[in-house]
């Protein structure tokens, strides 16, 4: 597939006098692994917040599968197929791993309040289906043995995996990962890379913010580099690596 999944046109976002994003455009194709890199404060997370509906952009448009999504709320973006994880892990800390993933199923299930209160058979069947799917997802990311552990008691690496499982539970078309390998050692990063390839192979497009250059260069198809809220380069890892403005942004010297 080569059609566009996500299309961002001329996004700008200001906070008071500070412009976090200026006229950023990019396109992500179905089945790609796409990375967003840049120095700290370049606007990567702001762009994530715009894509997931947490921020409304001041100008510009967002299209998902050709459908206008600008200004949609987070739960609407989730329903449309955008899921994310966070730079600083944000789980529901006092719920179990399984329950965390079950919340992720929320937007893909239908039985409402009446069903929940009166427990008619359809709602019961659905609850079971939610639970089973949540277990499968824990298995998928490799933490099934911790299903009944309260999230705050999981190890750091497992919390990251749980966040990914929870995001996958929403059945995303696009999975946005904010620094998924931060704080991980070499082995953990490698097994994470494997997981990402598996997720892509199962038909999910990935967008990631990552500082681990080796991971990004080895894994991603295309990269956009942001600096001071502006896009300074876009292309394959090799192209970006040798781009003079990118080298300047990272090393602070003009070449």
């Amino acid at each position, binding site marked *: 597939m080569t059609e566009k999944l996500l299309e961002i046109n001329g996004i700008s976002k200001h906070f008071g006098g500070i412009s976090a994003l200026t006229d950023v455009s990019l396109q992500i194709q179905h089945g790609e692994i796409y990375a967003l890199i840049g120095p700290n404060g370049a606007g990567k997370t702001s762009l994530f917040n715009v894509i997931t509906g947490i921020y409304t952009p001041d100008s510009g448009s967002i299209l998902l599968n050709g459908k206008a999504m600008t200004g949609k709320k987070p*739960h609407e973006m989730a329903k449309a197929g955008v899921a994310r994880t966070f730079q600083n892990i944000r789980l529901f800390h006092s719920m179990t791993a399984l329950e965390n993933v079950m919340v992720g199923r929320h*937007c893909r299930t239908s039985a409402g309040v009446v069903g929940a209160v009166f427990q008619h058979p359809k709602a019961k069947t659905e609850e079971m289906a939610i639970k089973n799917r949540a277990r499968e997802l824990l298995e998928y990311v490799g933490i099934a043995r911790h299903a009944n552990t309260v999230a705050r008691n999981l190890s750091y690496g497992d919390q990251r995996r749980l966040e990914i499982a929870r995001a996958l539970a929403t059945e995303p078309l696009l999975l946005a990962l904010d620094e998924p390998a931060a704080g991980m050692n070499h082995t953990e990063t490698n097994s994470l890379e494997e997981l990402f390839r598996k997720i892509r192979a199962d038909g999910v497009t990935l967008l990631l913010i990552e500082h681990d250059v080796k991971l990004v260069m080895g894994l991603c198809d295309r990269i956009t580099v942001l600096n001071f809220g502006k896009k300074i380069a876009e292309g394959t890892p090799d192209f970006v690596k040798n781009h003079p403005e990118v080298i300047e942004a990272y090393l602070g010297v003009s070449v």
Partner: protein
Amino acid sequence: MDIFLQQLINGLVSGSIYAIVALGYTLVYGILRLINFAHGEIVMLGAMIALSVIGLLTDSGLPGLLIVSLGLLCAIPCCMLIGYLIERIAYRPLRHAPSLTPLITAIGVSIVLQNLAMMIWGKEFISFPPLIDVQYFSISEATINSVQIFIVIVSTLMMTGLNYLVNKTKLGNAMRATAQNAEVAGLMGVNANTIISLTFVIGSALAAVAGMMVTMNYNVAHYDMGFMLGLKAFTAAVLGGIGNLRGAMFGGILLGIIESMGAGYLGTLTNGMFGSNYQDVFAFFTLIGVLIFKPSGLLGKAGGERP
């Protein structure tokens, strides 16, 4: 010993009602960090609406129990609607305001509802017509009547049901997720506004039933009955640890028992200086005690437990 069992029964009955009302406070607090002071007024409105319907049907010749049930069945949806409207009109516009603003608003809503009730139903006490044939049972030297048994059973069922709803169902999962982190829950496709509305609606349905129970227990309703009841239920919620469902249930029943024991023994202990009319004082002494020695409540964790 003779009055101990009787006071225990009385305490259990009023405690069950406190627990049901306290759940309404704690549910809303868990999600919005807001003390909904208007909640006591919803209990009062539940009682008033039920009594109005019952009043209309008294001479209809229908069986008494059916009339009472119809009154309750009308009161529940009315209170749910009122709860929904209160949140929609008074609290939602203030969602991002400093926390003192919605608190003051809640007190305002409470006063408005009380005065509206006074205009509609008047300042007189409204009595519960003798529709039900109340049976009395004696257990050693104490008595318990069928209405009291009904109150305890229905409260227990509602508490079990709510506990199941919050801890075992998809909706409950979404509620707990919203309480812990509304923004992230939104990213999982949970519409926070829907969950908040539902929380008010569920709390108000419980309040309507509680209103009916109070009227049946004391045989009267009055436009300002919600005020003191609301304060006591709030005390019960704080006693158990506000934001914690099991805490509210436990706190409600404990407060009911403390209060009725206090009322039963105060006269004896003080040689008749203070009588059972000091009952209300016990609730607030308890509140002060909890706030001094365990501000997070008996079942609450420091830093605020969330449901």
